């Protein structure tokens, strides 16, 4: 009988958590630096019960969702616009890739000064982070369109709008979804960073304030929550990717 892959993955996770528990309980490393897994669970349960997590997680989710939507709208829009003509693409694509390579974190202090410590600065920062992979993947998706399909479509009388909706957009979709996935992940990184650096609330703020009072169990627990958020989002994207490329399936 074949063992399902997900079962192996869960076994791996459990082994990791078990090892963590054992290594931490023999206290080779000080419990202040490495709390036991069980302590982490107890600590995070307390944070959940008090409503503290709920409050901060909601802020982070609001920021994440807003940034993702803004990044998606502008990234997809800019991507299709830039890819639409050779001149725009050749001018702007290298600039876009260059900007993508810059550690965007360097501009966060400025954004925090301009937009304050509330959610706005985080939403803007997350959007900037998410924008680049979405835009560049949209351009790559358009470029992957088979030119012969466009020729075929044109010969059957398709307008440029119809060529876009019936050929270019569906061709670009799988790459575009990959871009959305990276965009969401990067926006999350940006938001957590922003919250840790300068803010009044959110998961990153909570991690930062807990680590300043050396509450390692809470920090580890919160990191776990952050991981959970991003894992769930990525699982959703997995399903979307499978659905959108079902036609690539084998016989």
């Amino acid at each position: 009988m074949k063992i399902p892959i997900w079962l192996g993955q869960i076994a791996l996770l459990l082994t990791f958590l078990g090892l963590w528990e054992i290594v931490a309980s023999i206290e080779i490393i000080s419990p202040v630096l490495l709390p036991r897994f069980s302590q982490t669970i107890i600590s995070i349960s307390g944070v959940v019960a008090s409503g503290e997590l709920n409050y901060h997680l909601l802020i982070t989710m609001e920021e994440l969702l807003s940034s993702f939507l803004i990044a998606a709208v502008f990234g997809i829009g800019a991507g299709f616009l830039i890819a639409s003509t050779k001149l725009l693409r050749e001018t702007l694509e290298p600039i876009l890739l260059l900007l993508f390579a810059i550690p965007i974190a360097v501009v966060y202090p400025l954004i925090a000064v301009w937009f304050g410590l509330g959610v706005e600065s985080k939403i803007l920062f997350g959007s900037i982070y998410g924008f680049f992979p979405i835009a560049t993947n949209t351009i790559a998706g358009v470029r992957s369109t088979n030119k012969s399909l466009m020729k075929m479509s044109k010969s059957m009388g398709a307008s440029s709008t119809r060529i876009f909706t019936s050929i270019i957009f569906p061709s670009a979709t799988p790459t575009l979804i990959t871009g959305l996935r990276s965009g969401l992940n990067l926006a999350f990184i940006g938001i957590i960073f922003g919250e840790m650096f300068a803010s009044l609330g959110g998961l990153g703020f909570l991690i930062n304030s807990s680590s300043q009072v050396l509450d390692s169990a809470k920090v580890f627990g919160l990191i776990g929550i952050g991981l959970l958020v991003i894992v769930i989002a990525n699982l959703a994207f997995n399903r979307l990717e499978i659905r959108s490329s079902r036609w690539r399936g084998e016989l």
Partner: protein
Amino acid sequence: MTEPAIELRNLKKSYPVGNDGTIEVVRDVSLRVGARELVSLLGPSGCGKSTILAIVAGLTSPTGGEVRVNGDRVEGPRPTEITIVFQEPNLLPWRRADQNVRYGLELRGADPKVMNGLVKKYLNLVGLQGFEKYYPSQLSGGMAQRVALARALALETSIVLLDEPFGALDENTRSILGDELLRIKSFTEKTMLFVTHSIEEALHLSDRVLILSARPARVKDDIRINLETPRTVELRWSPEFQEYKVRIWQSLKDELERDVPEPVANR
């Protein structure tokens, strides 16, 4: 005399190369294709055959001369009169076979009921009943090209252009699809302009074979093929077929040799 379905008058096409050079692909091609005729353009590869077809389809514009279809000058695609089948099936990979056949009809904005009827009719005609729900990735090369053929035929245009439609298929599949094409043509009364570089295929299918020169393309020879109909694959072993083959080969041979680059030392 009745008006030809397709008429090319002094057609010329050259492309710019580099900053100020041009490459001449088609030089002064004139030809007529009568209604319900199947005419093959036969020539060495890269001689400009496909360019001629693309101009007739309205996908590229000529640099000189003109194309007339049913008397009208061609300025762009005319999807109600002309369809083109390419060497590659060019199926939309995210659409199932029947949705691919539907594609051209959707662009035309046909009534859904009419579309469904035409899709079914032409999928059956190319022998694909039972494969309606297959994605292109699940079809063999020959089957994919049948879908492409059905998609073109479903538009029910009077003219079908075929740009080496069976060129990417193996020899046997190619012969069978050739037979199918003749069978379909026999009761759909279509005018067909067929591009190929296979002498046998041209002979098997055509009423007339036009031999094109090496690039830049000119019409070198116009040979009427008076072979019995219906033509079958077996006809290829008949003496008449062989005679035609020799004649076409002799005409084509010089052009194939011209296509070979000259040795550097002779320049």
